[in-house]
């Protein structure tokens, strides 16, 4: 009897209806911000909801900068409300939306890399999606350090922080590599862990670093040497660092130059968290912020960009997200501990917009095929 009731209940239930939601596309009359140039308004509208699109760790990791930014911004602009939105696939979501004519639900994009700009321009009109910034409206823009210019010919983004990719190694097992060439030497056989440049930011940064060092024609030969020397290319930073490196499988990993900040916080043995800058270089990955072409709160968006470069915000972003500030040293006050454990390379390498445009996909594809070809 019991059996029958169960079966009856299951068999008789019906499938629930769908929570469909019907919307109508807005008139896209603000679409082309390019020609207006966003002149400074006499009476800026500083009231309303500013929607900032960003990545997960800005709001959801351990002690992220996001909540601080929201609170401090709302204190400074009492009529404004800052809301965070986290797209699933970063900038790609907005390129897709733009291509399909779907609504873009954000005013500011926080966290654009140089290759994001390249991807926008490869898929949409040149200089699309984000507005050409009128930098005169952002007073603190001239505080940004030299060398963090993201090289966008359309001037769509300003850097707000940067990270440096380097090697983290265990000094009990290997010596500090002086050059990239050293990594192909027997002393580093089966030592190095890297990440798939197809999907990992540090992985792609390391690949671009080798392209900068050995040129378009030489980087695959160099990687051949790395492969023969037993490099392991894992999916993503998490597995290679948290998994393979931290469990002692290998003594060296492509990682961030802020590694010791975490090692210090979590009481890890510093001898396993040494930083190496081969060729006296590190690869710089500046993160930029910009304003969407179709933004509805343009004035607030400009204020936010300026605010993010203020001394307080720069210190909070740097220390909470464990990144380096974008502004010059005199404009930001960092804890001594942060200064001590976050290392800056003697020379920062970046492959800029002009070189990436039209080349990036091919470089990565040729590299990946070299590895995956059976």
């Amino acid at each position, binding site marked *: 009897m*019991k*059996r*029958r009731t*169960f*079966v*009856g209940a299951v*068999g*008789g239930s*019906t*499938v*629930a209806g*769908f*929570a*469909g*939601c*019907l*919307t*109508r*596309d807005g008139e896209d009359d603000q679409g082309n911000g390019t020609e207006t140039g966003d002149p400074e308004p006499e009476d800026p509208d500083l009231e309303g909801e500013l929607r900032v699109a960003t990545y*997960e*760790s800005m*709001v*959801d*990791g*351990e002690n992220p900068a996001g*909540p601080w930014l*929201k609170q401090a911004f709302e204190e400074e602009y009492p009529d404004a409300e800052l809301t965070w*939105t986290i*797209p*699933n*696939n970063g900038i*790609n*979501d907005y390129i*897709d939306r733009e291509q399909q*004519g*779907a609504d873009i639900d954000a005013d500011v994009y926080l966290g654009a890399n140089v290759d994001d700009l390249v991807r926008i321009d490869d898929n949409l009109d040149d200089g699309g999606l984000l507005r050409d910034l009128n930098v005169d409206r952002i007073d603190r823009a001239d505080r940004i350090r030299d060398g963090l210019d993201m090289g966008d010919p359309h001037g769509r983004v300003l850097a707000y922080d940067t990270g440096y990719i380097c090697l983290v190694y265990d000094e009990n097992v290997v010596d500090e590599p002086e050059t990239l060439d050293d990594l192909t030497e027997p002393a580093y056989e089966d030592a190095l862990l890297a990440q*798939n440049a*197809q999907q990992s930011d540090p992985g792609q940064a390391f690949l671009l670093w080798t392209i900068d060092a050995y040129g378009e024609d030489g980087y695959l030969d160099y990687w051949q040497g790395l492969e023969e020397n037993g490099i*392991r*290319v*894992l*999916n*993503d930073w*998490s*597995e290679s660092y948290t*998994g*393979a490196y931290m*469990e*002692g*499988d*290998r003594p060296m990993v492509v990682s*961030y130059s802020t590694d010791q900040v975490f090692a210090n916080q*979590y*009481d*890890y043995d510093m001898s396993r968290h040494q930083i190496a800058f081969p060729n006296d270089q590190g690869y710089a990955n500046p993160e930029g912020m910009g304003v969407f072409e179709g933004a509805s709160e343009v004035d607030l968006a400009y204020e936010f960009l300026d605010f993010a470069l203020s001394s307080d915000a720069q210190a909070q972003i740097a220390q909470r997200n*464990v990144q380096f500030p974008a502004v010059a040293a005199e404009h930001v006050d960092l804890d001594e501990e942060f200064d001590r454990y976050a290392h800056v390379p003697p020379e920062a390498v970046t492959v800029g917009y002009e070189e990436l445009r039209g080349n990036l996909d091919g470089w990565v594809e040729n590299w990946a*095929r070299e*590895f*995956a070809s*059976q």
Partner: protein
Amino acid sequence: MRAAGLRRRSTAVRRWLEHHALSLTAIATAGVLAVMLYLPVGVVFVNAAFDDGVATLAFFREVLTDPFYVGVLADLFAEPLAVRAHLESLLGWLAAVSVSISLEYPIPGVPLPIPWPSLETPGIRTGLFGFTAYQAALSTVASVALGLPAAYILAKYEFRGRRTLRSLTILPFVLPGIMVAVGFYAMFGRTGTLNQLLGIAGLGPYPFIEWNPLAIVIVAHAFYNAPLVARVTVAAWESVDVRTVETARSLGASPRRAFRDVVVPQLLPAVLTGALLTFIFTFMTFPIVLALGGLQLATVEVWIYDRVRRLAYSEAATLAVLETVLSLGLTYAYLRYESAQSGLARGATSPSRTPLFPDLRTALSPRRVAIVGYGILTLVVFVGPMASLVVGGVTDGSGFTTRHYAFLLERQLEGADYQTLPLVAIRNSLLFGLATLVVAVPMGIVVSVVTVRADRGGAIVDTLAMLPLAVSGVVFGIGLLQGLVFGIPLPGGWRIQVTGAVAIVAAHAVAAYPFVTRNISPLLANLDPAMVESARALGASRYRALRDVELPLVASGIVAGAAFAFAISIGEFSSTVILASGGDTYTMPVAVERYLGRRSGPAIAMGTVLLVITAASFVVVDRVGGRFEG
């Protein structure tokens, strides 16, 4: 008078509903599939065949003639008519092939020889598809080999905690890929748990992961899929009609003979089902291969992900369509076999179980010793990574710590509403899991009933119904995003969007019902068709015959299917994260991913919470279900 009229009318309505219950459920199933599966998949697949709105085969030609993807077959696709040239090169190749079997010692330090077939071939290029199929085949063999002994023990022996263990078999299923990877490193890494244990005995450390990346990937695949093989097989074993065995025995068959001739044929469809599902899953495996093995072991899905990431949808769709075609082809071949099986089982009187360790003497018999050995192996492969993961959640550089759990607590108490709160994730996971179970079980049953023992057409319908398993997860995700989240454009500038809780449950149900079907169909096929026919002859509607005659006999399959449905929902990540964006409908795996920053502690703590909550609910689901199994 009025009351009587009402009663009469409601009886009529009930009768009508009962009469049409099956077709109504079928229509509802079709509706859910249309919106939540065919539409999003279609939105992406269309890119493979159209270039700027013009139909084209260029994308397929490009992939099929590229040796990187299809290896030596590229020549064949490039010039399909050059038969003579192809035959000549094939003969030349065959002439140079040699197969040898050598004894290898795959476990370092342990003198356990395993015959290792090695194939000497003159440099064949398998291409990305070839390698993907190769590793999937190896993973399937490993999963079946690891899963069947578990099924045997769970079905044949009685011991304390047997039911609980049976409920927990599919626990690995819900773990996010990154957690499995971290768990494997924590277990098998050079400073991992296993090496620490061996270190106590003065052995090691051994580079288990470095030693052979492909082997560790296959073990990880078995970690996911052997439980699946085991669970499907246990369900079939528990519905074996014991009387058929008794008949065989009374006719003089030895126990071994009775097992081989009577039990095995009833189990084989279930075992093959498990193998088929394993092959399809590992054929489309994604994060785990590169997380443990490395880029040298890249599969087709890795390339699909890359193409989606750089917005090259045509190439992504082309690769995904080929993946799906291969998976469905295999499914069709299997289903033709399954529907040809017609059993004569008339009851599910599950076999009586013998106590596992009744006394010391029995415990030392070779069979029991082998079982203990297998138990140790499962401890290493299944419990080890999960236990090591749990330990990772309470350690940092200085040893024991509760800071990662303190993070969860603090986030729950002080987190803002735009942050991810642990309790909300737990609540959503449980609610969606239950709702998925309620929706997916009838969907799965209907598909089984419609297709079981059907003709060729039925096998085709059944094959198409397995589409959720055979579509690249990456493509399904992007299809949901472009189709349902961005909204489907309607005339007049309107867009209809489908997101939120109901959409998530529907997406989960779509992913889950094939498991219900695949658990039930082999058992339904095994029943004697005469039983339904006599019920129908006595005036029962098709629905009543199903409800009162067939389903009770396959209850163990339904319970297994329901457990899978629940597990799929709890573990589902790729569609949940897309449909949950911007709302508070995130689940536990989504929370794990969102907490994963530069330090993994908080994510691992959340992963542990996911494991504990899921384990507890599996036991409850199985207990509740078990009451109906009899």
